[in-house]
């Protein structure tokens, strides 16, 4: 019996979609399990035959209980049925505690090699929910915010499973360990009822107490106050103003991103982050477009010796900083990801060396995580271009043969200093970047 939720202790078999003796293909639904008001189609993990139904439709079974047997070949059906009938339905199977398919599969095959009992593949849904109680082996890697939250909430970090790179514990992990709803910090919404401004006609009761609504977005001061800029904000201000002396232009491109997403999914388990992927893609493309990596100087166009991709990061207490991934074209994805994690951590603790945030030769600004479809960025002084990256969103796309399909698209927008980079330079750079991301994202892992 698969676990359909972390709190489920038993499930009801609504219906067997297959009869004993039926052929079952991998991924095919074999039965329907109900818990509460939710139905789940349970699929087989193997090609084979449903040999025996241990728990009939209408019955309930505790999570982990064997409910049916699937065998590999038709010949094994009879012997499996014999062993199933000798198995009292209620007796706990040795596989009861574990619901991980891999583990069960191993156990089952061990068993069959030892005793020539038919191979049993317990039925579990694609990915079981229940996770064993997690305990770290003493060494705790956690983000500063997670540590702070943990001490505030009285959560022992040693018992928290980290979802970050290399098992690093994130703030969200602490919250979910404590059973708190995961809040999305910058919209201050969490569990509060949705705040909706649209007016509701025909209703006399006042629906929302305006004063009690939580504030939208963030603010660094209270109403009526003027708060002095902090050092970082002052630095940002100076840079912003300086950009007014730069003759900038913008050029945009829509990049199909299904391949990139698929590749990201593949490398994510190795701790690779989307920031690293984008930085690497930009780095590799810049290597072939030195003009876009260049900058204006009073002596002429300066071509840097390295390709250093700076990535804009908003600071929690105002201002922003652009930690730099050095030699983004030549550094491996794994190293870029590690470096990025380290840079962000030290940026948060204000421990970055100037070299680490001012040596960028090209800047990347990603607001895709907010669902922004496009925006334009202001050029940081001392560099030639900055790329604004929007969200990857499904769009209806017409292909050359006239067929219509839904594909993910990501809009990017390059802001460049026209004294150094001309329209055609920017366009060619974007075209090559799009080609890499659309057709050849696996080259990022080289």
């Amino acid at each position, binding site marked *: 019996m698969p676990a359909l939720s*972390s709190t489920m202790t038993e499930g009801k078999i609504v219906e067997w979609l297959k009869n004993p003796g039926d052929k079952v293909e991998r991924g095919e639904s074999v039965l329907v399990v109900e818990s509460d008001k939710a139905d789940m189609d349970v699929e087989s993990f193997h090609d084979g035959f449903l040999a025996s139904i241990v728990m009939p439709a209408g019955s309930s079974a505790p999570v982990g209980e064997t409910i049916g047997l699937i065998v590999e070949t038709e010949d094994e059906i009879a012997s499996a049925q014999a062993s199933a009938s000798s198995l009292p339905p209620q007796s706990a199977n040795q596989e009861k505690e574990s619901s991980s398919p891999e583990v069960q599969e191993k156990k089952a095959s061990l068993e069959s090699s030892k005793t020539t009992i038919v191979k049993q593949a317990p039925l579990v849904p694609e990915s079981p929910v229940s996770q064993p109680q997690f305990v770290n082996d003493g060494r705790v890697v956690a*983000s500063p915010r997670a540590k702070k939250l943990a001490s505030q909430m009285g959560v022992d970090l040693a018992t928290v499973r980290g979802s970050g790179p290399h098992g690093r514990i994130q703030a969200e992990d602490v919250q979910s360990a404590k059973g708190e709803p995961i809040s999305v910090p910058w919209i201050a919404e969490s569990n509060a009822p949705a705040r909706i401004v649209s007016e509701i006609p025909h209703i006399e009761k006042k629906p929302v107490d305006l004063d009690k609504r939580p504030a939208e977005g963030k603010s660094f001061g209270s109403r009526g106050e003027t708060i002095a800029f902090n050092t970082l904000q002052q630095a940002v201000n100076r840079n912003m103003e300086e950009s007014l002396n730069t003759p900038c232009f913008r050029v945009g491109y829509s990049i199909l991103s299904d391949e990139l997403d698929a590749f990201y999914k593949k490398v994510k388990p190795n701790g690779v982050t989307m920031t690293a992927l984008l930085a690497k893609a930009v780095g590799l493309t810049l290597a072939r477009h030195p003009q876009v990596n260049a900058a204006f100087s009073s002596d002429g166009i300066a071509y840097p010796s390295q390709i250093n991709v700076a990535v804009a990061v*908003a600071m929690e207490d105002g201002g922003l900083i652009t930690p730099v991934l050095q030699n983004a074209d030549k550094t491996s994805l794994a190293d870029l990801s590690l470096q990025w994690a380290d840079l962000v951590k030290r940026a948060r603790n204000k421990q970055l060396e100037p070299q680490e945030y001012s040596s960028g030769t090209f800047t990347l600004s990603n607001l895709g995580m*907010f669902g922004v479809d496009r925006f334009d960025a202001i050029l940081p002084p001392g560099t030639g271009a900055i790329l604004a990256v929007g969200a990857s969103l*499904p769009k209806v796309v017409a292909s050359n043969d006239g067929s219509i399909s839904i594909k993910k698209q990501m809009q990017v927008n390059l802001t460049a200093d026209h004294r150094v980079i001309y329209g055609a330079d920017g366009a060619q750079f974007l075209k090559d970047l799009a080609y890499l991301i659309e057709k050849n994202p696996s080259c990022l892992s080289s």
Partner: protein
Amino acid sequence: MPESGPNSNLDLTRQLAQTSSAFLFEPKNIVPFETALCWQRNFQKNLIEQPFSPQAVWFLQHFPCYTLGRGSKKKNLLFDENKSLLPLFRIDRGGEVTHHMPGQIVGYLVFNLNLYKKDLSWYLRELEQVLIDVLNLLGIEGKRIDGLTGVWCEGQKVGSIGIGCKRWVTKHGFSLNVDCDLAGFQEIIPCGLNKVKLGKLSNWLPGIKVCDVQPLLRESVRRRFRLNWENKILD
């Protein structure tokens, strides 16, 4: 220097996982049950085969009909299954018999729970919260009843929930009685609960219409599941 979002958590890549997107469909006309079922099946199938396919949400109203879950007991129908006055559908969701009709908003959600939490009980509670939040905005207190799924106001059930799931891709969703005719519920034992009393929002807010509630529901779903709508919303 680039523009930047307010107060972002510094590790921006984490946040990528925190919003997802869905197509939103709000048909103006009343939709036959089987048509909406077909729409959902298409999106569910695509999501199962292609994890990056779009999710989808529908808010709509059905012509009067009854639907039964796969595990529903016939004894909860107080009439002969073959002599039903209204169309009767047996579908792949959990729960017992229910009744749809104009004046009731039906919300269908084809979501990939792999993006959220692979926990059906969590999902049911989130759907309840969506409804409770909307009621709250209307100044009505919606409640859960321990051990049951759905949303009640002053002892009357106003919101029902039933879902189906395959490879953690959901189908079906909830219904919320706004100003519908509840007479059809007398022919069945709704949700298999003998003493359940059905209610509708117009009992508390006379004159309230589906068009008043639907925008609140849409926003409540969007926020609770951190969605961006793929398509433009026309009001």
